[in-house]
């Protein structure tokens, strides 16, 4: 039996009187690539925000590998193993590429180093710094960002900024990686590239991927399972092919 990594139970949130998300039940198995699709305003990003602790759910809860994460702070959730990227890229713009990744690394137990150790420049500080730098370089090589490692991240071209955001998320050593519209603004070639990259990430970093995407070709080519949302509720769920061919889904997308 396959292990369930991320599970939501009756997850919901209301803003004022608006039920932005309600009764969402998703269970994602280990090393799956899982898609979250739906029209604009269906509540996809809100679910991401719930799963990362930006918003607190008003109903239901969610679990990572069986442990409940509801009510935890954003950083605790990240430490527990959920990392994300953003729909509108959020990099540390005035920091170099490598420092962006090193910020992601800094909470790993093996890079622990106290304030006074750093300020007094004890030997451990140098050891940790070097280890972090090497690890960051390794990650940057994978994402083809090594050459640009000392540039400011705001000077990177768009596609590379997306990659850097993924690299930074992976640096936090997640169990589940949440990607918010990773293919937005990419041309078909880049999209195809990205599909390979995501599969590669899953295998190389042993992560489970949950992604939001509008491009149906991308979703059907990449995702094992999907959940289709409409007006904050689940419209269809299951293997990609079944869910996307569901009459309800087609109706929601095409209208009438």
């Amino acid at each position, binding site marked *: 039996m396959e292990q369930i990594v991320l599970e939501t139970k009756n997850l919901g949130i209301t803003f004022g009187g608006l039920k932005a998300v309600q009764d969402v039940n998703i269970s994602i198995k280990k090393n799956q690539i899982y898609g979250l699709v739906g029209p604009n305003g269906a509540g996809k*990003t809100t679910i991401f*925000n719930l799963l990362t602790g930006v918003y607190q759910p008003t109903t239901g809860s969610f679990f990572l590998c069986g442990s409940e994460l509801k009510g935890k702070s954003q950083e605790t959730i990240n430490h527990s193993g959920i990392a994300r990227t*953003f729909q509108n890229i959020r990099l540390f713009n005035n920091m170099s590429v490598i420092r962006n990744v090193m910020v992601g690394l800094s909470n790993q137990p093996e890079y622990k180093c106290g304030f006074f150790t750093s300020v007094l420049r004890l030997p451990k500080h140098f050891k940790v710094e070097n280890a972090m730098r090497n690890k960051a370089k390794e990650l940057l090589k994978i994402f083809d960002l090594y050459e640009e490692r000392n540039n400011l991240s705001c000077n990177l071209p768009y596609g590379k900024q997306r990659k850097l955001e993924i690299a930074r998320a992976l640096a936090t050593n997640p169990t589940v990686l949440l990607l918010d519209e990773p293919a937005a603004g990419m041309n078909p070639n880049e999209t195809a590239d990205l599909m390979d990259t995501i599969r590669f990430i899953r295998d190389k970093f042993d992560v489970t991927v949950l992604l939001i995407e509008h491009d149906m070709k991308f979703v059907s080519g990449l995702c094992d399972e999907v959940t289709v949302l409409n007006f904050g509720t689940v419209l269809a769920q299951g293997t990609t092919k079944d869910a996307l061919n569901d009459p309800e889904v087609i109706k929601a997308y095409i209208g009438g």
Partner: protein
Amino acid sequence: MEIITTLINGLSIGGIYAMIALGYTMVYGIAKMLNFAHGDIIMVGGYTIYVFMNITGHPLIAVAVAVVFCVLIGVTIEKVAYKPLRGASPLAVLITAIGVSYLLQSLAQIIFGSAPKMVQFPDIKPIQIGSLKIQVYTLITLVASIIVMVLLTLFVKYTNIGRAMLATSEDRSATELMGINVNSVITITFAIGSALAALAGLFYLLKAPNISNTFGSMPGIKAFTAAVIGGIGSIPGAMLGGILLGMVEAISYNIPAIAPYTDAIEFLILIVILLVKPAGILGKRRREKV
């Protein structure tokens, strides 16, 4: 009886603060900047009144000239110092505003010297109702500030320019797309703010007739505090914050044990209110979209 005097005093100080706070809050709402030099416009107004009181001896003429002059100065500052920075980091704008504040203060010192100047207003006997004694100027301040606030509220609600101002403070780029000239809206905002500052200068002089180049600093800071307490960007908030702060000040001055700490108490109230309501009493909270 003393309580009533204190309350009336508080309301009139509050009215002055509210008038200044309105300038801060409108500029903040519309240009999204802290006009740190706003307090010094009060000083400019005060000196103009001083000069024209000496020339004409007539307060109304002096005030009219001061209003016009402050509007000109305010609009010029906006065009020269703030407009080039539109779209730049708000911190940069804030620091430029600090620079403008220094500039006005040192110019005033060059022109008028550092010794305080005394403005002579006509002497009017206080009104006596039973044992209650009220200064006429306090009453004038109170009435005038109420009129100003009412007029401003009506202006914002019912005129095209006022609605354009509200729209700009909600969403500048959308307003621009609607065909409204945001630049002129900002200019008008600065003009109104400066006119209010000139009036506040008059009322502050009626209360304390000595003027020096730092005349506007403390009322400026207090009014800014009032604007933040009320919720910066909100016009009713500025009025509420101003009156609240004025009352606190008047009451605190009347209790000998805490009178020396009046300033500290006012700032403490600010900190406490912001801790409870981080956007001020009537401030709108906006969530950042993730």
